[in-house]
């Protein structure tokens, strides 16, 4: 990188557009942390593109001073795949919501992840449809009463990270809108990863689903309900760091440290395990039985779709560096008419 590069500050990543989310919306915090993360990595602004679908969260690109596209509902990963395949030099972010990514857009998400396109996908999970004013989403809990489910929803929710593991994601993480340092840090690590980075962010919609993540954000309860993952470290949580997760066969169980249970008895996090079973197991740990994990669940090196696609093009070009269209036109059986 050239030394002349002016150093951009977080504020330099904000556009001149009025931010139009509801006051108090968790999206504000994610926006702020994104700007910080981008400022910290020092990648030039014009080399970054934000692609979003439709939803409150998907207004995000308007508020960034990078290139951006507010596309159509659910399809952001597909736009981003096209852009990144054509322009591997760009850093491409996908901003999406729980409805956008998992309802209408589930298939594109799944395929971007399985191809391991070098994208950073940030899913703002508020467990509700915000923009359309409060219907239940694929992450809403069973029994959820919303405008479209007055007797309570009967659909089993999806766990975004389990879905990602199911399609072989190479970078899987979770963070929380109000956990600002953790969030900025996670976004930065996602940006560094080669291949699809999938980050779920617990986001509060204070208008239609206020308090959905209360257990994970309330000062009083969060330490007992949230477990911060660290690669190579045992799974410990609790206000007094006195609780941990131990493996019982293939099942995790909550144990208290002490009384013969030492740290070494606990499950140690391995974000780089070649097999994703650990990440799967962690993604299934859910309230109220288990603390919910945040941090990086999985981060492995694997071939990247856009790299490989472009490598094929380069290889073909190198093998035929003087390829001429006239040669193509004149290939095969031809004949002269005098």
């Amino acid at each position, binding site marked *: 990188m050239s030394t002349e590069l002016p150093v951009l500050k977080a504020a330099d990543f904000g556009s001149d557009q009025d931010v139009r989310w509801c006051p108090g919306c968790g999206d504000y915090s994610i926006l702020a942390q994104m700007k910080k993360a981008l400022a910290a990595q020092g990648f030039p602004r014009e080399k970054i593109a934000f692609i979003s679908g439709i939803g409150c969260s998907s207004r995000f690109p*308007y508020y960034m001073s990078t290139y951006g596209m*507010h596309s*159509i509902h659910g399809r952001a990963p597909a736009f981003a795949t096209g852009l990144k395949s054509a322009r591997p030099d760009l850093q491409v972010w996908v901003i999406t919501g729980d409805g956008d990514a998992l309802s209408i857009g589930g298939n594109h998400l799944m395929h971007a992840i399985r191809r391991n396109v070098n994208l950073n996908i940030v899913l703002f999970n508020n467990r509700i449809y915000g923009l359309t004013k409060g219907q239940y989403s694929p992450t809403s809990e069973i029994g959820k009463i919303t405008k479209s489910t007055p007797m309570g929803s009967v659909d089993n929710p999806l766990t975004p990270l389990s879905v990602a593991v199911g399609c072989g994601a190479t970078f899987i993480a979770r963070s929380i809108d109000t956990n600002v340092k953790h969030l900025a840090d996670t976004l930065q690590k996602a940006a560094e990863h080669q291949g699809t980075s999938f980050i779920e962010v617990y986001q509060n919609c204070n208008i239609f689903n206020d308090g959905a993540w209360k257990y994970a954000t309330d000062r009083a309860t969060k330490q007992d309900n949230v477990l911060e993952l660290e690669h190579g470290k045992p799974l410990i949580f609790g206000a007094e760091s006195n609780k941990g997760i131990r493996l019982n066969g293939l099942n995790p169980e909550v144990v208290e440290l002490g009384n013969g249970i030492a740290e070494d008895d606990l499950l140690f996090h391995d974000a780089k395990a070649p097999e994703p079973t650990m990440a799967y197991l962690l993604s299934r740990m859910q309230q109220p039985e288990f603390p919910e994990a945040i941090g990086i669940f999985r981060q492995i090196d694997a071939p990247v779709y856009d790299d490989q696609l472009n490598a094929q093009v380069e290889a073909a070009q190198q093998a035929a560096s003087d390829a001429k*269209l006239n040669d193509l036109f004149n290939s095969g059986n031809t004949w002269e008419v005098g």
Partner: protein
Amino acid sequence: MASTVEHISRATIRFAGDSGDGMQLTGTQLTNTSALAGNDVATFPDFPAEIRAPRGTRAGVSGFQVQFASEDIFTPGDQLDTLVVMNPAALVTNISDLRSGGLLIVNEDNFVDKEFRLAKVESNPLDDPEMDQYRVIKIKMTLLTRTAVEELELSTKIADRCKNFFAMGFVYWLYNRDLQPTLDFINAKFGGKPEIAAANEKALKAGYNYGETTEAAISTYQVEKAKLEPGKYKNIMGNQALAWGCITAAKLSDKDLFLGSYPITPASDILHELSKHKKFGVRTFQAEDEIAAVCATIGAAFGGHMSITTSSGPGIALKGEAMGLGMILELPMLIINIQRGGPSTGLPTKTEQSDLLQCMYGRNGESPLPVIAARSPADCFDTAIDAWRVAAKFMCPVIVLSDGYIANGAEPWRIPDYDTIEKIVIDHPGERAEEDPPFLPYKRNEDLSRPWALPGTKGLEHRIGGLEKEHETGNVSYDPDNHEFMCKIRQEKIDKIAEFIPELEVDGEESGDLLVLSWGGTYGACTTAVTQCQAEGLSVSHAHLRFINPFPRNLESLLGNFKQVVIPELNLGQLQKIIKSTFGVDAEGIHKLKGRPFTVSELVQQFKELIG
């Protein structure tokens, strides 16, 4: 040669047999050989929707028709001069197209009870008194082929696979075709399997020799070279020409080509063809579905590539929402629709022109897009380039229409010299400094086009999206007047393309009794039918539309010059509807929805009836 040679100006031949009988290959070989012999050629392959429909059944019949001629031709011919049938099912499903007096060549070995049952015929159809009108040649092809390849000691199954080459050889003898090109083909294709190559070669020669040596009660035919425009030619199929046209358009505009596609008949071959040409900077993305395909295409267009998506009717229906986004984003790209029989899944392997209205109107809101249609296999090459010229100049998605008939048909293509094709100049705005005035992504030029600013360019960072945008700034705007203004200016931009595209040419007098107005794949049949009418002294002219949206600027006045206008279409009158709603002109329609192109004779008849 024992038999006499009759010199004829054109011949139409169809091979028909089971899907597994290799009829497509046989037809393609005859086509190529005839083209190499200097004939003009046109082909029409016709195959079932199943990969391998049950052997011997009517549903499993696959056919390939070729016309070759010593004069310009535009269709694969109406009635057959020669029909080759490999089994009873092929006979009963094809015989009605053989002209009275035509040659029927039959693989006699398959005319047995078991095959009759499979074909659902009561008795041997060759015994039908109706057969008297044809000159029937029965050949024990299976047996003769087996004998021919005997010494190679192949399994019967493999030996029998060669019998299409036997049939081919016989037809080559009949039409005095050179074996060499096909022998070369056999070597190239089966080189890796020498016994197969040898078997096919033996079968081919056996068929040829069979004609020469058996008692030749029939004469053979000779079709001389056609007087084509001087130049170098090759045979090209529609989808291949479209693919090559796109590669060429990309190079002409100094761009890489991006294809986002999802396989669908009859468009898949464009994906197959393009994926072979990575060396020309082609990236192909086989998406998870058509929606992802068009979205990736828009993404790559945003990134600055020449970006295209290909599909057919049902897939285009799925792309509607994203095409609307492409329209409001005002990014250039091609959306290519190889039409097939509809509605719904319809007749997926058959041809039709019934997606015109969908392409014009199949999007929410006021969402106009240019529509251009190819007229023949070779024309696909130019159509792709022309479409991209419009897309790049006017910053908009352009819809390109072809159809199953064009896509799979072949004709001689006069090979252009790349270096003489007019370049496509695209200006991308350059970097801006902090102190420059702000970049206006929706500021329009004299074509009403906005700038194509590429990510990566410093100072041009901007956001685009599907919400209504403010004039010039492109910021989201809910302003009522701005919305109306933007809707109208987007329409105006499309209308203005009429100033850029050429006027419509008339084949024949500029005024008269009847104007035949055609579009797309009916070009050949209409041209031939009009030429016939003109030769009979009738006042019939022909104009063929390349652009359907916008129409050429002289179309309205032209329509007024004729007492009657007729629009032949393979649908229930879709262009007819648009012509009427645009110009108020009450054109007659000729409609056909049989999964097949028009025959020249049915058009001639209808034109004559109209003139009265």
